[in-house]
């Protein structure tokens, strides 16, 4: 039986296991939306395409499944671009379906026409323009395969209107034929043995784990390797949760606002095992001060991540999970007591750094310190919530004062640093994991960028909690202007802002304003009782609090400012 392109598309999505997607209709997508009307796939209507794609991204990060979203041609598609780039930077599997004008109109500057394949080319893992209804099944199958395997990323599929209307037989492909796409899963055993030999001989080794451990779900393998070898683990910002945040071998996360011990330790190891990380500039600081004496082995599924920023001595291309399993199968053949005493000293040295300079703030202050809010959320949720963040100071404090037990608990725009990401991402995370508490730790600046999604949360009874650390500033901008621009607060003051309580209430959501320190915990507890709608908590925090430690731009990891 022949089906329309729209029917073939929706059936293909169903076959790929899609049960929830985010999308905003438009002229050229009307055929698709008519088909979706009868589909069992749950459709979430955000109030802005950017909200939709960040929600799909949050859903994907929280569940490990591919996030799916629709936007119509022209402005609908261009509104998705930030979300696509965000997913590409943080390796999030997305299939992004965009409407397109009819193929005979393409190139003629038709109404709502945009060359979205061209516009998104530098920020996608791959993209397709559908050119016949027959190829829809193959393209969708390939798109999900490419998005979710290897180093995950966003795949854009552009859907000309006529392709959705024309009919074809539905033929579901039995296999995928992509001769140019074949990610390496298993690592080279010789290289793995070489890595273990170097690890065995090292006196001051560290494991540096990144988001690859989260994406591959290799947290147990990571923890086991660290325990057997007795090697301290330092994570990247997005690697948090790769081993439990309270584990004795976990030192913290490194980088611009990472903890003192992690950054000090990274200046002097003799060996680094890097796992699923891309040595971003925010993590490494100035490169000549980053582990200058270390031999470095690097496990990564993306060969181009290896030796991109930092020269690698032992490259191991493969999926983190597969390679760590291979390493664990070999690990007993090595003598981990060989340098035990030197390593004990090394661990003691790191622990002493941590004791000397843990993450901290003025706990005695009467005013609400933003860090206290995060700590209270940690306490009240017993460390079990999914924490999404916006971007800026709020994001750093969320990383500093919440300890993550497992992967997919910490959801943050790490690479692109997209303000306005956290709230829609929290919405997607909560839809994907309804049994979990989901918080968006927000700044007043970032939250303003996508707060229209309160409406979406209301419509679908999504009980996300938003904790605005409200300092009436673009806090990180103010901090830099305070520290490096002689206190000239250029365009960072947000004195004019809505009454967030009334704003929440206008949507039918719950709003709270918390002005006293003693009310912080109570408000968070209260928010957990609300199960059918979002809660917006406006914490009036110390306006001038800065994030420390801080590695200034261009400084090395051990050149932190502590106050």
């Amino acid at each position: 039986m022949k089906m329309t392109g729209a029917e073939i598309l929706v059936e293909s999505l169903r076959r790929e296991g899609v049960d929830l997607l985010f999308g905003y209709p438009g002229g050229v997508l009307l055929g698709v939306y008519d088909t979706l009307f009868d589909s069992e796939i749950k459709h979430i209507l955000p109030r802005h395409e950017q909200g939709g794609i960040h929600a799909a991204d949050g859903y994907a990060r929280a569940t490990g499944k591919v996030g799916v979203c629709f936007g119509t041609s022209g402005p609908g598609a261009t509104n998705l671009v930030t979300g696509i780039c965000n997913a590409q930077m943080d390796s999030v599997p997305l299939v992004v379906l965009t409407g397109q004008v009819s193929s005979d109109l393409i190139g003629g500057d038709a109404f709502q026409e945009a060359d979205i394949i061209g516009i998104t080319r530098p920020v996608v893992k791959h993209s397709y323009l559908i050119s016949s209804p027959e190829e829809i099944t193959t393209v969708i199958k390939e798109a999900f395969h490419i998005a979710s395997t290897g180093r995950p990323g966003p795949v854009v599929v552009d859907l000309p209107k006529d392709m959705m209307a024309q009919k074809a037989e539905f033929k579901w492909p039995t296999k995928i034929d992509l001769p140019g796409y074949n990610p390496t899963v298993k690592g080279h055993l010789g290289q793995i043995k070489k890595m273990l030999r170097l690890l065995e001989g090292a006196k001051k080794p560290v494991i540096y784990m990144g988001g690859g451990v989260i994406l591959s779900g290799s947290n147990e393998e990571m923890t086991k390797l660290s325990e057997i070898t007795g090697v301290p683990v330092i994570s990247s910002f997005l690697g948090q949760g790769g081993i439990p945040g309270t584990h004795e071998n976990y030192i913290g996360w490194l980088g611009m606002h990472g903890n003192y011990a992690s950054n000090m330790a990274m200046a002097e190891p003799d060996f680094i095992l890097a796992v699923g990380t891309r040595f971003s500039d925010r993590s490494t600081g100035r490169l000549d001060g980053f582990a200058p004496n270390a031999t470095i082995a690097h496990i990564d599924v993306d060969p181009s991540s290896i030796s991109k920023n930092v020269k690698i001595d032992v490259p191991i291309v493969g999926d983190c999970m597969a390679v760590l399993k291979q390493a664990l199968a070999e690990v007993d053949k090595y003598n981990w007591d060989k340098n035990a005493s030197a390593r004990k000293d090394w661990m003691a040295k790191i622990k002493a750094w941590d004791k000397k300079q843990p993450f901290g703030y003025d706990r005695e202050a009467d005013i609400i310190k933003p860090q206290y809010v995060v700590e209270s959320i940690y306490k009240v949720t017993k460390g079990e919530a999914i924490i999404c963040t916006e971007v800026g100071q709020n994001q750093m404090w969320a990383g500093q004062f919440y300890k993550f037990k497992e992967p997919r608990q910490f959801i943050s725009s790490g690479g692109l640093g997209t303000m306005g990401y956290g709230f829609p991402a929290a919405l997607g995370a909560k839809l994907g994991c309804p049994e979990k508490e989901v918080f968006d730790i927000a700044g007043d600046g970032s939250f303003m960028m996508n707060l229209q999604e309160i409406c979406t949360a209301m419509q679908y009874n999504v009980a996300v909690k938003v904790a605005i650390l409200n300092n009436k500033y673009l806090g990180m901008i103010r901090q830099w202007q305070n520290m490096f621009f002689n206190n000239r607060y250029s365009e960072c003051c947000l004195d004019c802002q809505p009454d967030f309580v009334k704003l929440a209430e206008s949507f039918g959501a719950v709003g709270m304003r918390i002005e006293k320190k003693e009310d912080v915990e109570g408000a968070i507890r209260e928010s957990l009782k609300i199960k059918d709608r979002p809660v917006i908590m406006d914490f009036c925090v110390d306006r001038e609090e800065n994030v420390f430690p801080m590695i200034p731009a261009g400084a090395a990891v051990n050149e932190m400012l502590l106050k």
Partner: protein
Amino acid sequence: MRHTISVLVENKFGVLSRISGLFSGRGYNIESLSVNNTMEPEFSIMTIVTTGDDAVIEQIIKQLRKLVNVLKVRDVSQMEHIEREMHLVKVKANQETRSEIFNIISTFRGKTIDITNNSLVVEITGVSDKVSAFLKVLEPYGIIEVVRTGSIAIARGSKSTTDFK
């Protein structure tokens, strides 16, 4: 360092822009790029001449390999290889100078492919050094126009860039 990279790609929509965009987006240099079908119409070979230190070239090759439509990447300049580019050169030539110019063309093994009363069009192929030398010698006569292909290259021996399986 100058490198000549041979890239086998699927002949699909937008492949050239994915490759040229990769170079411009990541700040890599393209000295020349030439592309055409192989014996099998579904594949093309691109020859890209680029410059960079070893780390940059390594990244270029890895980034190219990451593209879904790219099947094979070889740095042919690291192998025994043959490289050619072709120029069409229009030069001023009148009755007095024509025979001198013919001598130069024959020395460089070029071909005269068009003659008018006051000009000639010459076809010349070779490695770029040779072609540059040719142009230099012709310069005093007055070069009107030069159109050149990019370099194309092939490795010596029986192996082929088109074997990708």
